[in-house]
């Protein structure tokens, strides 16, 4: 079995989730705090679009923006010497764009579930907005954010349509697991496709189970237990 699709997929999904995770949280925070209700709806619509559009359409748009003959793609190529289309970077870009709505929506939902009185309390107590975010909002939205992250990771790993459009299907370079499954089937190599399918199924299963576990842990923990004694002693010293 050629392992390169597995490695490319893992590398792509790992890089993509780092970007998606932080950008998704930042954008969610920004949208949640938007004052203008109508603008908020419009932005939310745009940000959720990649989730409802067929990935090939998202890929089409990406190609339209980052293609070497397009303004943005041209600019990147001429001034930075970076070619996005049909490079490994394009697989990451596709995964980020497609998995972004999942991260963004989960984080937004999680933020909105946090009792706004907690944030107000933080403000009246004199805490800075920065520490309110990191010490109150983020920890209390943690379970939603984590499960969103896991979902986004799985989605990035399974990305096919947009990747095929903007990154192509170059063996050893942009051929990710889903593309390898497709290529092998297209070439009539069912045995080869079977192995990749198995890898994908196993990883996806662990991801979903992991998500359930995270939810379970947070529900059980739910900040109702006393801090373990060992930790307490360390603190006192």
């Amino acid at each position: 079995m050629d392992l390169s699709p597995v490695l490319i997929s893992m590398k792509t999904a790992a890089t993509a989730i780092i970007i998606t995770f932080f950008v998704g949280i930042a954008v969610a925070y920004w949208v949640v705090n938007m004052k203008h209700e109508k603008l908020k709806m419009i932005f939310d619509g745009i940000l959720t679009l990649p989730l409802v559009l067929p990935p090939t359409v998202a890929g089409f748009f990406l190609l339209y923006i980052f293609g070497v003959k397009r303004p943005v793609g041209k600019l990147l190529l001429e001034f930075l010497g970076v070619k996005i289309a049909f490079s490994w970077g394009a697989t990451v870009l596709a995964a980020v764009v497609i998995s972004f709505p999942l991260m963004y929506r989960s984080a937004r939902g999680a933020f909105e579930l946090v009792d706004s009185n907690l944030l107000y309390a933080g403000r009246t107590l004199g805490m800075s907005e920065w520490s309110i975010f990191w010490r109150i909002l983020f920890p209390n939205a943690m379970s939603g954010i984590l499960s969103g992250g896991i979902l986004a990771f799985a989605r990035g790993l399974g990305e096919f349509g947009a990747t095929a459009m903007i990154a192509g299907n170059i063996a050893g370079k942009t051929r990710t697991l889903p593309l390898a499954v497709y290529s092998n089937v297209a070439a009539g190599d069912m045995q080869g496709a079977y192995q990749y399918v198995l890898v994908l199924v196993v990883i996806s299963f662990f991801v979903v189970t992991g998500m359930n576990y995270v939810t379970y842990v947070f529900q059980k923990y739910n900040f109702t237990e006393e801090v373990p004694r060992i930790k307490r002693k360390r603190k006192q010293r």
Partner: protein
Amino acid sequence: MKKLQADFQKKLKNFDLQMRFAMEEGCLGILGASGCGKSMTLKTIAGIVTPDEGKISTEKTVFYDSAEKLSLAPQKRKVGYLFQNYALFPNMTVAENIAAGIRPREEGTAFRAGKQNVREQVKNLLVQFQLEGFENQYPMKLSGGQQQRTALARILASRPDILLLDEPFSAMDSYLREELQIELNKRLKAFSGCTIIVSHDRDEIYKLCTHTMIMGEGRNIICEETEKLFSNPGYMQAARLTGCKNISRAKRTGIRTVQALDWGVEFCVDREMPEQLSYIGVRAHDFIPIAVNDERQENVIQVYPCDVTRAPFEWTLLFQNKEDPKEYIWMKQERGKWQIPQKVWVSPEKILLLKE
């Protein structure tokens, strides 16, 4: 100079909030029905909500001034806000919650609270609020009283100039409530700044506040010393909110006589009646049963009993005027002397003369 001055407007969904009041040191209670804008008033003072226009200031700082386009961040107002649900941070222990209230930097000085200092302050507050032994517990595990104490300790850790308490006892059962009211009363007396308590419970306000403001539909109806307000509410809404069960439309019939139109009774009063008198009120406890052969003529009602309910310590009688039955009148008596009277009497000074 007054300690806190507020004069602001804000458009809300159902009505406009138009508040104007000033207070000195002590404790002001804001009494009003649910949804009349009480909490909104507190939130505006704290800076959580921004009004449309007006000015809010203390003797030291201006919080908000629409004329100068100035709105101080809630972080800088030094206003402690006790939320209805206490808003304890669920991801922090009691000690961490209290420490979160300590300001890292004292405004205007080079002082920075070091770790050692924070720990000491937290320890002092834990002792002061009887929370020793709970410092490593998460808020969800605490009882209602402990949660309230933690929230108060956290607020005092931030050294506020003003305390705002939003329905501090609404989440508690009646037994706990009375105990905590006494406790809170002590703590408020020790607090040097001014305090505003918002509540729909008149007993709470009466026990805790030196001054009381009655609010209705976003407006300040009357603001008065608590004792005075309860003995002479002056306004129909104030009478209702201070617990007056019997309010009737009224018509002046003489210099010292007034007709209660809803009850079909004429009353004598012992003082001047205001020009705009439109209601009179009698508290349910102020009816006194008298003997059938009693010779009093004025302010006597022949009782036509309709309904009796018994509570553990008092009983309530609903009755009508036998001679001219109209609306029901409420009467409350302590348990023990329990017997349905045939005649009741009201002392002229107990009749509340009310404006619209």
